[in-house]
């Protein structure tokens, strides 16, 4: 019995194109989910912050459901769960819902939307009243006040928390591998299974995720330096 096997780096390098495709799929899923989630969260967060009579309680339920349960189960519910119903299988939606990629994207988008709604709600609620008053004093219409003053101001202050959400979504996207998708982790697991490896494939996946995480963290630090400059402690 061979006791201490060396790392099979050669197999990883020989299959680097698979990993490149995996990185592409992970980035695609993560970024699209973030984008769709943001489109849900901006109106939803505003409605929540303003205690909109009809939408606010509904959105609260949505946020509670998606933030209070595991992303893995949400993904299962959409991919495996919906196929239970004959009317789903017979409708046009089945073209989308039988495809794991679309199911993952739907689950991730709804999940990210819920977290981002809460972030934007918090940022809008903590906007100093003076900013709204200043906008009114300048004679801006309510719409102009929202789009030129309040939303940009809230989004800037939401930046640090949103950066965390971006990393959270990147890591959450590894769930895609469980519903057969060949994202970074999916490729790692396939490689492990094909060559009977113990950890090389997954270790490579871990390193790739780590690298992408650090790039994203660095990117957000840059954005914060730029957009939160006015909030940095001033030296006398």
């Amino acid at each position, binding site marked *: *019995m061979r*006791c*201490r096997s060396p790392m099979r780096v050669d197999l990883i390098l020989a299959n680097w194109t698979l990993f490149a495709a995996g990185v592409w799929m992970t980035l695609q899923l993560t970024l699209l989910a973030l984008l769709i989630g943001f489109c849900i969260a901006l109106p939803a967060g505003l409605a929540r912050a303003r205690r909109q009579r009809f939408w606010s309680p509904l959105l609260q339920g949505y946020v*509670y*459901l998606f933030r*209070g*349960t*595991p*992303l*893995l*189960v*949400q993904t*299962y*519910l959409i991919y*495996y*769960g*919906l*196929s*239970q*119903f004959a009317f789903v299988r017979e409708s046009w939606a089945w073209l989308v819902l039988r495809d794991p990629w679309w199911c993952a994207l739907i689950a991730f988008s709804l999940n990210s939307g819920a977290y981002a709604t809460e972030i934007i709600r918090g940022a809008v609620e903590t906007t100093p009243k003076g900013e709204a008053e200043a906008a009114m004093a300048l004679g801006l219409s309510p719409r102009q006040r929202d789009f030129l003053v309040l939303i940009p101001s809230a989004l800037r202050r939401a930046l640090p928390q949103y950066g965390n959400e971006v*990393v959270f979504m*990147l*890591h*959450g*996207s*590894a*769930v895609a*591998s*469980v519903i057969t998708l060949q994202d970074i*982790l999916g490729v*790692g*697991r396939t490689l*492990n299974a094909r060559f009977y490896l*113990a*950890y090389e494939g*997954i*270790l490579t*996946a*871990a390193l790739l*995720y*780590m*690298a992408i*995480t*650090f790039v994203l963290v660095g990117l957000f630090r840059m954005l914060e330096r730029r957009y939160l400059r006015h909030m940095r402690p001033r030296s006398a």
Partner: protein
Amino acid sequence: MENLIRYVPLLLNGVLVTVALALISLLFATLFGALGAAGRISRRPLASGAVLLYTTLVRGIPDLVLLLLVYFGGQRLLNNLASFLGLGPVSLSPFWAGVVAIAFIYGAYLTETFRGAYQTIPHGQVEAAQALGLRGFALHWNVTIPQLIRFALPGYANVWQVLVKSTAVVSVIGLEDLVGIANEAGKTAREPFIFYMAVLAVYLFITWISTTLFEAMERRYAVPLAHAR
């Protein structure tokens, strides 16, 4: 629906596994977090550097990836260790692989929580305690730790809520937790949607109970001076 009711005893077993996994992981994560915070606060550059490396690494890796690494890689490591020591085969169960991975991840988050809480304690309090002759264990047990609990509780509650949801991924390596059992039962009963909805309901229930408990604890550890008249 009748199928779901038929499977209730089995699903309750799954809930027990999920809760046990979460609680045992939290216990070890707290231990890692306490050690990590102690290392990070200490003035030894080697210790604080090692902890910084640990927290940075963990924050870069998804929970599912670390879990698979621990489960498959850890098994190989255990095999090598056992054959080196001349022991028979040792196997790593999905449950304990889950505990190791989850405790390792959330230990890193708790390190930051505890460190932040410790730094909130005004240094004058430590000096006052020293002036009263308290040292070492007595100082920490009577002065810093009670306050540390107060300051750390909100962050701790947060980590717990995230940790509970994280346990779901352990079903991927075959643990018969709530998710694992609902997976199988839903397939057998051909009603996966209903079974997953039940799983979501259980997680929401756990979240709700934990929120209630942590709020009670936060009241218990709230600033006692606030009530002085």
